[in-house]
């Protein structure tokens, strides 16, 4: 290699404005909006009650700003949440919404989405809600590929209960409930999702509106369950948790921006990259040392999740070095709701629409005169 490439890291695909996703196959069963909506149409009249400075505000603004791009009717959008700071989200969206109970949003939304293919159903959850009390529902929603978009706000702390460690907190985290430091290994939400047969897995950051929006777009047009992990800052109980990925001086070195079809390289000037080493593992190297052709080209549509999983493991959980963001995996698989509907259609085609009188009588009857 001669001189290092000076070009900036490629921006995430898609812009923030003037994008319409309305024609996407994933949205074809949902009625189209008659006239264009704006972010304002998605703001409810409720006073937002998060702490000043909370990362949730940025996510709410991004979601409200992105929703009009879907081109679908507002009344066909539903936000379902569990419990936690993030779970107040539905109250601030002027759509249909349910603020349910701790951890159960994926199960509730499964019943809704499986019975109403004409709805766009979104779940807002947190690291405790999704990965502790609701872990079982999360993994089963993912494997079933229910038509749900799950926004997992990961702040690596319990906020609403005032500062206990969470299942994504780093080992040794000192909190009110772990004064000597936590002793359990955290979950990596992207790894969990990939292990649970997720068909779409992505990660983004609350403060990067452009990237966040691009990931939301990709999730919205995905058929089936999409899990979007959003690194979200809790400025009260875990401030600065993702600072290495946000600070102007460190973020470009720490963050790997995944782009489908592109060699995986990052760092200032793209001087670092990811290769598959002689042991078959992914490794971060200086591009100068290996040449661009040696870099792994990111393929989000690869059926085999091994590489996506390996990418998920690149990040150092303690200092966030080498943290990939973007879409890890986006494959096409039939949705749970459509398979359920297909069985109903087949049963009706085979037996005709059910006749209640015939069902009640059954085959063996006798008459008393």
């Amino acid at each position, binding site marked *: 290699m001669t001189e290092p490439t000076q070009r900036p890291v490629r921006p995430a695909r898609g812009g923030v404005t003037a994008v319409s996703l309305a024609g996407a196959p994933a949205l074809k069963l949902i009625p189209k909006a008659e006239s264009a909506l704006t972010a304002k149409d998605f703001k*409810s009249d409720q006073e937002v009650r998060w702490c000043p400075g909370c990362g949730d505000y940025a996510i709410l603004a991004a979601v409200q700003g992105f929703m009009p791009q879907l081109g679908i009717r507002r009344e066909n959008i539903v936000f379902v949440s569990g419990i936690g700071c993030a779970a107040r989200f539905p109250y601030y969206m002027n759509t249909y919404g349910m603020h*349910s109970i701790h951890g159960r949003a994926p199960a509730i939304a499964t019943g809704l989405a499986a019975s*109403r293919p004409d709805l766009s159903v979104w779940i807002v959850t947190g690291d405790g809600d999704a990965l502790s009390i609701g872990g079982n529902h999360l993994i089963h929603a993912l494997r079933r590929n229910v038509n749900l978009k799950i926004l997992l706000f990961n702040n690596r702390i319990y906020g609403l209960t005032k500062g206990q460690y969470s299942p994504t907190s780093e080992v040794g985290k000192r909190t009110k409930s772990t004064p000597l430091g936590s002793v359990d290994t955290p979950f990596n939400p992207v790894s969990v999702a990939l292990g649970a047969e997720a068909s779409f897995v992505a990660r983004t950051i609350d403060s990067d509106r452009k990237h966040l929006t691009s990931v939301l777009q990709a999730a919205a047009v995905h058929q089936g369950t999409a899990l979007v992990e959003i690194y979200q800052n809790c400025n009260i109980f875990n401030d600065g948790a993702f600072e290495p990925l946000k600070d102007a001086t460190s973020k470009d070195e720490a963050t790997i921006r995944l782009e489908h079809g592109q060699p995986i390289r990052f760092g200032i000037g793209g001087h670092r990259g990811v290769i598959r080493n002689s042991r078959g593992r992914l490794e971060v190297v200086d591009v100068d040392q290996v040449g661009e052709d040696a870099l792994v080209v990111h393929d989000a549509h690869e059926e085999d999740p091994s590489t996506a999983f390996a990418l998920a493991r690149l990040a150092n959980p303690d200092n966030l070095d080498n943290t990939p963001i973007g879409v890890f995996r986006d494959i096409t698989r039939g949705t749970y709701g459509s398979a359920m509907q297909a069985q109903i259609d087949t049963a009706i085609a085979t037996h005709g629409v059910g006749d209640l009188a015939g069902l009640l*009588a059954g085959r063996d009857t006798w008459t008393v005169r």
Partner: protein
Amino acid sequence: MTNRTANKPVKTLSEVIIRFAGDSGDGMQLTGDRFTTESAAFGNSLSTLPDFPAEIRAPAGTLPGVSAYQLHFADHSVVTPGDAPTVLVAMNPAALKANLSDLPRGGTIIVDTDEFTKRNLAKVGYATSPVEDGSLADYLVHPVKLTSLTVDAVAKVGVSRKDAERAKNMFALGLLSWLYHRPLEGTRRFLETKFAGRREVLRANLVALEAGWSYGETTEGFAVNYEVKPASLPPGRYRTIRGNQALAYGLVAAAERSNLPLFLGSYPITPASDILHELSALKHFGVRTFQAEDEIAGVAAAIGASYGGSLGVTTTSGPGISLKAETIGLAVALELPLIVVDVQRGGPSTGLPTKTEQADLLQVLFGRNGEAPVPVVAAQTASDCFDAAVEAARIALTYRTPVFLLSDGYLANGSEPWLIPEVASLPDLRVQFATAPNDGEHFRPYLRDPVTLARPWAIPGTPGLEHRIGGIEKKDGTGEISYDPANHDHMVRTRAAKVAGIEVPPLDVDDPDGNAELLVLGWGSTYGPVTGAVRVLRAQGVPVARAHLRHLNPMPANTEEVLRRYRRVVVPEMNLGQLALLIRGLYLVDAIGINQVRGQPFRVDDLVDAIRSVLDGTATRTAVGSAGRYGRSPTIPSIPIGDEPGSTDDAEPVLLPAHAGTGPATNGGAR
């Protein structure tokens, strides 16, 4: 074959109680079920009690592996499977040993002597064969080489020895069908469907069936055969139906009559799973069944579907209700229609999965955090599970509330003749979704119907009615989050008033002569045994009144008035006194419990004895917490009750557990 004239003398009986017993793999449930269907088709009144272990196939020939099926059929109306069999069919020594103590002296025993080998006898601790050592001298024993006769008969078919032996239950069915003049056509048709595509196995079963019949006709071992004439049932078209099947059909009927799609979220659990199975096979009715990852997800998905405009249902047993509790509380807060089916079984914890009990009543009424009232409907008989399901749906849809539908293991698996209802005669359950703002330009999700206090059901997809609901306390009307003390007090009372105000039919009393002093108050599956006991008592000249609660919450408006008409109120329950506790707490009526938790329905004779002991003052009182069981076990804590000689109503109150301090054994009313 059924048209053949038997050459042997025919004796007419009024009723017969047969118990088929064998290994779990012997096909006793199938045999019993077929004999039931034959008897129903013949026109008898009948009631059944399948009784099987939780283990799928316990080691062959052992006591834990015994599976039994009891059938009571008669030329008159019967309401229970019978206290004790008059005929025991025992396919091996374990089946004999496990069931012999239930057979009264003089009863008939038919045994498969081929299975009475040294090894099989030893497995259950018989040193010698009871068939040969004279220990069955008090019974009428028919030793039949069932297995070898079956194998010989089907030899010409050319199936494997294993398949040949397996057909022995059909040989037994053929023999019993001859003995009691049952038609065989239905079973032939049944076998043709069951073994369609397996022609040799089908032929083996048909041959075994015929051979059993012929054996009865020709062998000298059976000198007479019997007939039980058809019962006179109300005119109409009948079928037999099992409780879980009736319940599933009731849900489908409710969906059709409400014009809503049915959504079942469920996790497999005994004895409720058959409802999931039934509904899974009814996709052409638009039924969506979701086998969830756990009990919580089952009810959660059902609520999600209800929110979207389906008739959401979840089905489970007691342990599942424990797990679903928080989510049912959410449904109370959301005020959405939901049916929660609890097919009760023996508890606590895993308890007795395949046995029956009624010990979830207090759990469904009170097993949630906060003030979380939920209506409760209880099915009374196997076929009544249909009507109870329709009624539960009516309440859920009219009042926008979760509703408990209680069944139990006895109803779930028991079967009885069912007068098939006309679809048009079922209630109209159509609902009106909200379609427009209800407060000027605004939509208020908690603005209530002034009569029912139900809130509007505005489903996603309805323009202009976008709104948010949740488990957190909400402002009445708007549904916005509210921590206001007065609002919370108002909402708690409003939810309570909504449930308390549900219209339910009055409590009917069966008191033909109007001169009874004692009322037997039952609920749920004690309907059959209580009815049977009351009939016996009246036949003995003892006037007794009877009433049965279908609605446990709210109870009918006339309940207190009915209770106060009687000097004694007796409450038989398959628990330690849960309804009795409610009756005492709600009405200050001195309800006397008759309690049994044996995993079996009450025996009529036991109930008769217990009620008599209340009437003559020799009963012992039991109540929740006193670990009691009437009569039989003098070592457990018990408290004498009743009018001892010389005692009066204003005597010192008897000492009762703290919760039940209502004083003397009188209801304080007239009489």
